[in-house]
């Protein structure tokens, strides 16, 4: 190794740093130039998962009382004030008892006649709820709750499920204790043939069904145990138009039947195409008010331009606190047409 004069040293050292770095990284990397090291801030921003052992759970706390305020503003419009609503999503709360909290098995899950299964009846790990609320709620504005908000909302939900008392404050330091109260904490079974690894996560068994390839006279006769119920015959629209109109078969109803229904009202089609109907029913509230409810409210008033502005810019407070998101992609002419259609009573045909 030769020596440089002192005068050259700083310049050389500066030049050498990137060279060394590059040489080092190509020696370590199989794919030089591909990808870069993630910064701690980047990892912190995206690594948000919380495991059943609560690894990943950020510090924080929130009370039932605080949770109720957030709930009523941001959650109740879909889930109902008491988490019981099934209009938009499956109910969150209901179906569990004090006894379940003792045993860790929800007794109603054994009943064939029990209608529906709420989230709190099924979930065994409290971490799942914290993680999911934090990453995906509220539904139309995911990842906007603070950590303390998440603790508060979860505290309120647990209170609705009668797992924690009214004056409870949930925090990272007591969440493990609440886990021990989860009504279905012992309700998961990991012994089956359907996990594709050998990691010990699941105790592998042979497949639980054991059919054979019998080819002749396999049973005395074939008995039909179930047929399509009458209501389901038409529940999926005109079957005649759901299969290619040539080939081996036709769709049922094509033969001399009534012609396929004429298209929807074009403005109704526009409402569907523009995504309005995801949140607004024709007559009933889904997330936002039903169209005919809007028409009734403004009957006899000249509100077209006001509502067009509201559609374009979004808003909240008139029909509840669930905000209507701004419809920035909607053309002005379409917004006009939609508002006029809504105020005319939202005819579908």
């Amino acid at each position: 190794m030769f020596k440089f004069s002192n005068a050259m040293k700083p310049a050389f050292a500066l030049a050498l740093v990137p060279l060394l770095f590059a040489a080092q990284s190509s020696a370590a990397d199989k794919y030089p130039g591909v990808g870069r090291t993630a910064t701690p801030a980047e990892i912190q921003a995206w690594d948000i998962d919380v495991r059943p052992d609560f690894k990943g759970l950020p510090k924080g706390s929130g009370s039932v009382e605080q949770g109720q305020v957030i709930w009523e503003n941001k959650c109740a419009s879909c889930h109902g004030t008491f988490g019981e609503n099934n209009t938009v999503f499956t109910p969150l709360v209901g179906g569990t008892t004090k006894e379940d909290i003792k045993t860790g098995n929800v007794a109603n899950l054994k009943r064939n006649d029990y209608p529906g299964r709420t989230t709190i009846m099924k979930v065994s790990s409290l971490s799942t709820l914290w993680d999911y609320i934090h990453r995906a709620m509220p539904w139309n504005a995911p990842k906007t709750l603070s950590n303390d908000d998440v603790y508060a909302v979860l505290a309120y939900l647990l209170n609705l499920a009668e797992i924690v008392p009214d004056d409870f404050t949930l925090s990272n330091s007591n969440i493990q204790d609440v886990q021990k109260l989860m009504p279905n904490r012992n309700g998961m079974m990991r012994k089956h043939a359907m996990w594709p690894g050998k990691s010990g996560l699941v105790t592998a068994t042979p497949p639980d069904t054991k059919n054979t390839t019998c080819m002749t006279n396999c049973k005395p006769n074939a008995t039909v145990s179930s047929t399509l119920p009458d209501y389901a015959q038409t529940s999926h629209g005109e079957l005649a138009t759901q299969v290619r109109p040539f080939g081996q078969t036709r769709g049922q109803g094509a033969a001399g039947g009534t012609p396929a229904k004429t298209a929807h009202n074009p403005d109704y089609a526009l409402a569907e195409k523009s995504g309005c109907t995801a949140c607004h029913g024709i007559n009933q509230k889904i997330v936002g008010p039903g169209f005919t409810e809007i028409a009734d409210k403004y009957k006899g008033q000249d509100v077209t331009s006001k509502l067009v502005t509201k559609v374009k810019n979004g808003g909240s407070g008139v029909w509840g606190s669930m905000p209507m998101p701004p419809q920035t992609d909607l053309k002005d002419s379409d917004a006009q047409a939609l508002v006029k259609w809504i105020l005319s009573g939202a005819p579908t045909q």
Partner: protein
Amino acid sequence: MAKNEELIPVETPEGLKKPGRIQKAPENFLTPTEVEQVTKGRRDFLRGSFMAAVAAAVTGRNAFAQDASALVDAKTGDPYILQPQTWATTLGKGVATAPYGLPSKFESDVIRRPSPGLTQTTQSSVSFSPLQSMFGIITASGLHFERHHQGWYDIDPSMHRLMVNGSSPEFVKKPKVYTMDDIMRMPFVSRIHFIECGANTGMEWGNVAVPTVQYTHGMLSCSEFTGVPLRLLLEDCGADMTKKFVLAEGADGSAMTRTIPMEMVLNDEVLVAYGMNGEMMRPENGYPLRLVVPGVQGVSWVKWLRRIEVGDQPYATKDEAVHYIDLMKDGQHRQYTSIQECKSVICTPSGGQKLLEKGYYTISGLAWSGRGKIKQVDVSTDGGVNWKRAKLETPIQSKALTRFSLPWNWDGKTAILQSRAVDDTGFVQPSYGQLRAVRGTRSIYHNNAIQSWGVAENGDVSNVQVL
């Protein structure tokens, strides 16, 4: 309709006549006066009626409902042959008229459809692939079934990132961020695999609930996927490959997460995929990046993939602890049920369809297994009393759809069509009776029972269940 039935050619000689396939003509196809003239022998009306039929085909679908043979003139033959047609006598369209090609306008009935009433929003919902109208094993990308949890976005690929890190810092020595440029420079593989939602056929656990194969089995698609084996990315980050799990996370609102076993990463099955059927992944399917986990239910194929975490414990994510858990008879839920077991379904003929006449048909359907290759498919036309071995189209690939077919002469009597698949582990697809005996009827997920289609004497095919 009687008047239109009279339209069916008088004096039709044998050979041209196929009365069984004739469907009653739609209303207004010919006016009563025209019908009268035809019955009086005015043949020139036939050509006019064809013009009407062609016009109807352009705007609607009724032309095809009218069987061609019904319009064949006994003495001369088929006007579509005898009369020069527009497409044969005028100049057609130029290249790149459709810079991105679309299906024929006559294929407008072949679309994905939601199941009305299944969900209250379109953003947390499903649309089903029209299996009844598809051929072979590859799903046309525009017909691939959709399942979104919080809506979909068309993400700008220049803004999309994939991060690899560890649940503990020591699990991944050099956590990294990759752009699409980075990922597409890596070594790639292309493989054909099926993807099936764990809840496919879920509506049918207790009884028949939906009319057609689109709704019973349409949360099923199969594509050629191109991407980087996840193992290469993990090794590039210095990951500890002895850890048992990886977590996959999406970039969408739901930030979907699922636990994936490291074994499937180590054997190079798990891909970080950007290509689908020769083009980029469609936005509805996760553009620009999704995880491919062959044989495992679709929910694990995380779309808009933004992060992979190497971990030493499972994650019990929302779709591993609230949904995608299988309720058994004793009130316990099976957790981490991921494999889609061996299954098959007849797509033609199938529920909601009609056989127009007696005679020859080719029964056609799909078989698949999340454990490997399809070894055998048997078809029954008597509800499972007797079976015949179906023909399998090649190539037969692991964890991919396999097309089967069987010739069938329908004698016009009632029949119950079934298919039963066997995979190369020897597993035989169960009957409804067998499946319910071990799992009850409330599981929602992983219904792989033998599907039955009842054929009535009038040719109507409908969804039925046989234990």
